[in-house]
């Protein structure tokens, strides 16, 4: 890490000129001021080009029209977003068709977990405290990583911003569909300590209009029961190798359901959901005697979820009122030894203890002890880089539920990467085998769980190249990766033969081949700054489950587009900044039953215009966003319409 920082400083020096040039215009923008420090990390360390990764940071991250992490990730190549629509709709990411549960989300290197169902709702995480958002296919390949960072098929890193000066900023927003947002951020820096407190409150009715128009219907309406109210407050404290973070999120939302044929608006979904998520985490890392590096992580998570349809006005569906409680304690110890500058060896031990409680019938508390160990080696010698790791995972469950606990799970999985860099060009290849353990829901959930489930394996193979060119005015990079994935023993919920019950089962084999490419260019002059970011995904992933089933075998996986692409252009001139993001997602089928069962391709254009002004020590800025400029009606899940064109007006003050 020490070496890393030195390198960053060197890069910073190289870009100092460019940064200074930008300062004149950048200082006027509140967003840019916060982002300024991150502009330095535009060129990547050689060792990091070994991993396939994409990063959005600083101005570019802020320039995209986004309110949550999911909105930023959709611009990455190889990412598919599942979104049930609206501010409150569940948002998950799927990378290279591995499935959402194979994507690990990490805040400052510590994984966000959900022992219950294994997926993280990205709508709960704000970008305003983030310095950057990165997606790594397979491993990140730091010198000193915890074992759990090796334990997912793809990893998303959210890196919290470390303040470098005192500041206060306030944002107020009014957006379409009766949406109000207020946000405040306080940052400080004293004697090497730095930190922030960030709070947000949002209230949205979310009653956006939608239309289904086809040969068989012309349905127009407003989304009902799609409101959300949430508050989020978080803080962080840093000093040197110490980082800590505390987070609390509280929300209430309506669960709107699919748009189905109805004769009137008499019957609407009444289900509501409450979430309360809390975590506190800390990590400390230090280097001693030049060759030794130690990192310690600790985290406690407490999550509460309530789902309720038990209302007097609910006269026609089941009246449910369920509460789920999850707690999770986590600790990790990592040690890296660098005998020579070109070689690094590391080992890590992670332990996590989870508890799930719920007031479901025939259910009782479930406990899980999850231990992971990894040994890893990395070498970087004259442009040739090699990394290898071997991960061991052990899961043991305990439950008072009458079905009994699953057998302990004990598995070893490897990953290996290699790269060669010549000039600005890097060739790389990697292979990773990893599994996801069945979640507590998969195993124990009443009337669904199956404690005989086997882990779901993924095997990924990747070949890629990456190119960088940095000049004082220009900064260009491009990368392309071809990949092949296999997923075995998919964990899915299927009905049992000859009964009315559904249960979790290992069923399915997926074979996927694809190409991810990104290209980025940035150009600065005294008055102007331009950025162009592009991404392209071509993918053919097919179902290889049952060779005898001609309707499904070798047919594309549902919800997976063959082609998707994104282009983001940012233009800055003095106090003004205009960004335009274009996203295309090709046709996806959602069932094999009928060629008509497809989700139509869509084009999304988002635009954002920001005007910033500096008055004495006060910054203020006004930002107008238009999302889905073409007002395209599209959906990620059939019959869950996404909002069409909508507007956001944001006023910001900063000190």
């Amino acid at each position: 890490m020490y070496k890393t920082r030195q390198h960053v400083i060197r890069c910073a020096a190289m870009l100092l000129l460019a940064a200074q040039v930008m300062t004149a215009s950048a200082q006027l923008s509140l967003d840019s001021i916060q982002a300024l420090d991150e502009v330095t990390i535009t060129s990547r360390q050689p060792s990091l080009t070994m991993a396939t990764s994409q990063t959005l940071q600083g101005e570019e991250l802020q320039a995209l029209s986004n309110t949550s992490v999911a909105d930023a990730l959709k611009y990455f190549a190889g990412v598919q977003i599942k979104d049930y629509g609206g501010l409150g709709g569940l948002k998950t990411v799927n990378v290279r068709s591995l499935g959402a549960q194979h994507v690990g989300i990490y805040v400052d290197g510590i994984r966000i977990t959900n022992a219950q169902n294994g997926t993280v709702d990205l709508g709960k995480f704000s970008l305003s405290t983030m310095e950057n958002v990165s997606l790594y296919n397979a491993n990140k390949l730091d010198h000193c990583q915890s074992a759990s960072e090796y334990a997912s098929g793809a990893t998303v890193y959210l890196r919290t911003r470390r303040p470098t000066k005192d500041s206060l900023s306030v944002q107020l927003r009014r957006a379409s569909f009766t949406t109000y947002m207020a946000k405040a951020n306080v940052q400080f820096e004293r004697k090497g300590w730095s930190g922030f407190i960030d709070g947000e409150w949002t209230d949205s009715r979310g009653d956006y209009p939608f239309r289904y128009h086809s040969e068989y219907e012309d349905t127009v309406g407003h989304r009902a029961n799609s409101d959300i109210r949430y508050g989020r407050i978080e803080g962080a404290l840093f000093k040197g190798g110490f980082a800590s973070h505390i987070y609390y999120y509280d929300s209430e939302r309506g669960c709107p359901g699919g748009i189905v044929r109805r004769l009137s608006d008499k019957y609407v979904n009444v289900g509501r959901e409450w979430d309360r998520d809390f975590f506190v985490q800390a990590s400390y890392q230090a280097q001693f005697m030049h060759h030794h590096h130690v990192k310690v992580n600790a985290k406690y998570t407490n999550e509460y979820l309530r789902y309720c349809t038990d209302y007097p006005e609910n006269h026609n569906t089941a009246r449910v009122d369920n509460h789920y409680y999850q707690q999770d304690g986590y600790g990790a110890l990592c040690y890296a030894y660098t005998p020579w500058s070109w070689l690094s060896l590391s080992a890590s031990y992670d332990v996590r203890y989870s508890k799930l409680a719920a007031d479901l019938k025939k259910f009782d508390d479930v406990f899980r002890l999850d231990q992971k160990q990894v040994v890893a080696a990395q070498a970087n010698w004259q442009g040739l880089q090699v990394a290898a790791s071997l991960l061991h995972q052990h899961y043991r469950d305990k439950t008072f539920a009458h079905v009994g606990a699953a057998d302990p799970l004990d598995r070893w999985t490897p990953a290996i990467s290699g790269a060669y860099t010549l000039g600005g060009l890097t060739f790389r290849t990697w292979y990773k085998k990893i599994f996801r353990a069945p979640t507590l829901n998969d195993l124990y959930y009443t009337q669904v769980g199956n404690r005989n489930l086997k882990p779901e394996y993924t095997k990924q193979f990747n070949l890629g190249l990456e190119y960088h060119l940095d000049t004082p005015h220009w900064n260009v990079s491009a990368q392309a990766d071809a990949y092949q994935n296999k997923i075995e023993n998919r964990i899915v919920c299927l009905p049992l033969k000859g009964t009315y019950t559904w249960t979790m089962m290992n069923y399915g084999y997926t074979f996927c081949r694809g190409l991810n490419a990104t290209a980025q260019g940035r150009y600065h002059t005294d008055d102007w700054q331009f950025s162009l970011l592009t991404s392209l995904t071509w993918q053919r992933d097919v179902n290889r489950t049952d060779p005898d089933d001609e309707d499904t075998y070798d047919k594309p996986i549902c919800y997976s587009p063959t082609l998707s692409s994104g282009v983001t252009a940012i233009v800055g001139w003095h106090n003004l900044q205009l960004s335009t993001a274009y996203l295309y997602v090709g046709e996806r089928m959602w069932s094999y039953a009928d060629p008509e069962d497809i989700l139509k391709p869509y084009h999304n254009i988002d635009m954002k215009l920001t005007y910033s002004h500096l008055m004495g020590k006060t910054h203020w800025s006004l930002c107008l966003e238009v999302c889905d400029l073409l007002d395209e009606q599209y959906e990620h899940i059939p019959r869950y319409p996404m909002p069409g064109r909508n507007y956001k007006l944001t006023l910001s003050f900063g000190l």
Partner: protein
Amino acid sequence: MKKFILLLLCSIATSLHAQERIILLNEGNWQADNGKISYFEDGEIVSNQWFRDINKRKLGDTPNDIIQINSNLIAITVNWSNIIQFISPDGKRIAETEDVPNNRKLATDGRYVYVTSYGHECGTIHGYEMFTRGYVAKIDVQTFKVVATCEVGYEPEGIAYYNGHLFIANTGGYAFQEDHEYETTVSIIDAETMQLVRNVDTGQINLYGKLSQSGQYLCINSPGDYYDIPAATVIFDCEGALHGDDDCFVVLEYASTYNCTMLDGNFIAIGSRFSYYTNEYTFNYVVIDPHEVMLTDGGGGVDESLPGTMLEDLKALGMPYGVYVNPYTGYMYATDAGSFAAAGALVQWSPEGTFLGRHKVYINPAHFLALPPDGVDFAGIEQVTDKDKPTSTDEVYDLRGVRIAPAEGFYIQDGKKIYKH
């Protein structure tokens, strides 16, 4: 001349009588609004979106039951759309109502259609009515309005009409989520007054799924709770129940998840008994002779062999999802839901159990209705002549379920619709 020959050929083609005519409801995926009707005629699927083709609109979400009421009218419960859709036998929509939300299964006497509902409210000609538990609604098919209701147990499912009475299997199916237990009763209602006559406690929980009727006997499935209580089948004697007999039912240790009445009056049942503790199943494919079962108190009357190759063919299905016997012709059918994301299949056998074909339909094909072959009168109506004239005047009812003296025309006797001329 050529034109004339062509016309002649066309008229010959159209005058060829269709014998096998099956309407099949594909449930689709929940909340995806893709319930579809397949129409099958003489060995071929005519359309897998029959309702859309004819009416240029979608059927709705999760169709759950279908019944023919008279020669011009069919009712379909479209559960998650909260719609009861009325169509003509040629598929044209006639009317629809949303007065009975969370509608489940249907029965009819030819004049009224009776529908069970898991819901707690019902729009009637007297305004909205509220219920603590579930209810049965009586819909007048001349106005398509609910004229009367009767509260029964929680989450009432299967329903049959026999001898002026309705027999309703209560499930209590929301017991897993709600604050009540599974139901174990069959509710008996006087169809004319819509008053509860009594509840018969079968001792078996969760009387869920389609029930089949063969004269005075019902075949009712109990899936159990999938933990401690295994699945069972209740053979229920409506006649005995009406006489107040305590032993008007027999419990069999078989599952009848999917069941249907065969031409000879026996029930065919496919099911499995499953436990979450062991994650193990026992499948059964049986033919049940209800009369024999009642006589022997369950000691006999169950045959584990099926006609022809049907048993082997059924075992080969990926995911059996329905079974049906055409009451007019005896041809037998089953559906295979396959992988649930792909199209399901309709499988056909001759009355002797000879495999005839497998046809691609849509997602989750589940509920059947046979239309009468061309030239045959509507479903279930037997034509009798004077020599079959009922002897006892006590047991004859008009199509509304009102006791009458036997006369010319339509009436009901022994649970059968009869046309006397």
